[in-house]
């Protein structure tokens, strides 16, 4: 079936980034084949909380904070354009996001962060006291809040619908989407990409875009990503609740979410703390559900009696330094890496656009030097934090000095 197929670009991965790349490339007139091992939005994109966050994370590297804000703001502009031109709605709403602190000490940390962000010219970020936070989100447990960081333009979307919307638009522009087509290998000859090998043949192409996020390091040598297991769940349909998204460090783990879909289901998430031996294990274990539910009950006591109708585990990816890996892979001509770090929904649109710009024009509207995917090649092998949970990864990323220590 796939024999003798040919395209300008093969995109590997049918998540938010892969479909975005396919759409933007097709919009520029390239012939595109997208290969997805399972179905559209089967990986992290179909399993996440759908938060669109500008300049997230709590590390204090000035370059990173500044850069993230610039990229994620450009991304939001793309979503707004999507909303105007796309046939399908993906429920993007800018409802604001609270980065909630529980202890006074944590609140001090937020104060310092906001000072840095403001000195960088970010006039939108605000520090809310406990009282103000509770006014914004009245169903929070007052005992669990000491204050928060608030940005009005943050928000959430329905990640599943975003992927579908992008895939549908890409197909309209002539892109071919092959689901259940696992790419076994990227074919490279004399440091130049020739195509990809799938089960029944080779798809020839001039460029290959690796947008497989947590799985990208197995397809491309030199890429470094840490797979992080996270779980999420969705409640029965509820009347409209205070809509703000939130993020908080709860009992040493990140809890986040509160995306309400258009039909009323509330999406909440947290870490999957069971840590099976295989970090790519997408099965969910009952202990994990109970543990995250106990967080949610503590954070939102009023949701105590609400029924959860589904829960699942997804594998997201973090990079060792907390920055996305977007750009051409050094040493291999024609191979482009599109792996956003962490909050992929804040990057998906712009990552696809950058990919298309680089492949079509050879230059990008946003500088991508900081995101060079080859930046880990030749560096001393890093010691990953174990277990691979998001909290230790975040600490690891924030603590830059100790990273290369033995």
């Amino acid at each position, binding site marked *: 079936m796939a024999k003798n197929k040919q395209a300008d670009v093969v995109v590997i991965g049918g998540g938010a980034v892969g479909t975005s790349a396919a759409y933007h490339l097709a919009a520029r007139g390239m012939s595109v084949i997208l290969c997805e091992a399972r179905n559209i939005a089967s990986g992290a994109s179909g399993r996440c909380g759908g938060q669109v966050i500008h300049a997230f994370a709590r590390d204090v590297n000035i370059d990173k904070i500044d850069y993230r804000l610039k990229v994620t703001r450009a991304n939001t502009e793309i979503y707004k354009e999507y909303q105007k031109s796309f046939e399908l709605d993906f429920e993007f709403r800018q409802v604001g996001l609270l980065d909630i602190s529980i202890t006074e000490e944590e609140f001090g940390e937020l104060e310092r962060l906001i000072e840095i962000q403001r000195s960088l010219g970010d006039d939108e970020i605000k520090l809310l006291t406990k009282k103000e936070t509770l006014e914004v989100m009245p169903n929070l447990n007052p005992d669990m809040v000491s204050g928060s960081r608030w940005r009005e333009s943050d928000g959430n979307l329905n990640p599943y619908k975003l992927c579908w919307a992008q895939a549908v638009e890409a197909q309209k522009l002539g892109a071919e989407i092959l689901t259940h087509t696992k790419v076994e290998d990227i074919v490279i000859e004399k440091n130049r990409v020739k195509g990809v090998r799938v089960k029944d043949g080779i798809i020839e192409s001039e460029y290959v875009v690796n947008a497989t996020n947590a799985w990208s390091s197995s397809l491309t040598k030199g890429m470094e990503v840490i797979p992080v297991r996270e779980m999420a769940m969705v409640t029965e*349909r509820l009347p409209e609740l205070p809509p703000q998204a939130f993020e908080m460090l709860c009992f040493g783990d990140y809890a986040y979410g509160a995306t309400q879909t258009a039909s009323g289901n509330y999406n909440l998430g947290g870490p999957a703390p069971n840590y099976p031996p295989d970090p790519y294990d997408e099965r969910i274990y009952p202990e994990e559900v109970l543990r995250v539910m106990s967080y949610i009950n503590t954070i939102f006591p009023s949701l105590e009696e609400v029924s959860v109708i589904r829960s699942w585990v997804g594998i997201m990816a973090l990079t060792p330094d907390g920055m996305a890996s977007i750009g051409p892979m050094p040493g291999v001509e024609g191979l482009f890496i599109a792996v956003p770090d962490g909050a992929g929904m804040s990057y998906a649109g712009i990552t696809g656009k950058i990919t298309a710009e680089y492949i079509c024009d050879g230059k990008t509207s946003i500088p991508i030097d900081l995101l060079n995917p080859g930046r880990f090649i030749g560096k001393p092998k890093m010691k990953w934090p174990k277990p691979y949970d998001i909290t230790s990864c975040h600490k690891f990323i924030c603590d830059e000095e100790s990273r290369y220590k033995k």
Partner: protein
Amino acid sequence: MRVYDHPILGKLPDRKEITILVDGKKIKAYEDETIATAILASGIKTLRYTSEKHEPRGIFCAIGQCTDCVMEVNGQPNVRTCITPVEENMVIATQQGLGTWRKVSSKKK
């Protein structure tokens, strides 16, 4: 309507009578029976209206599976009345669509 003397199940046992509030109206109920039972006994058949077509719904499966009988109980929407026992002075409201979230934080039991 209640069957006080059932030809097979026999007589209803004596139970404590309590009062619940349904849409502001006082209704008599017996302890340990479900909300749906008490409401049906008082002659009310519509428990909620659907969210899209605003059609009336009442008891359907009566075993807590179909969620057709959900109402707002003490400010909490989506409570399955067919499996929730009545309590003295419970405030119950007919649910419109997905209901209205009136509950801010739960009472500690």
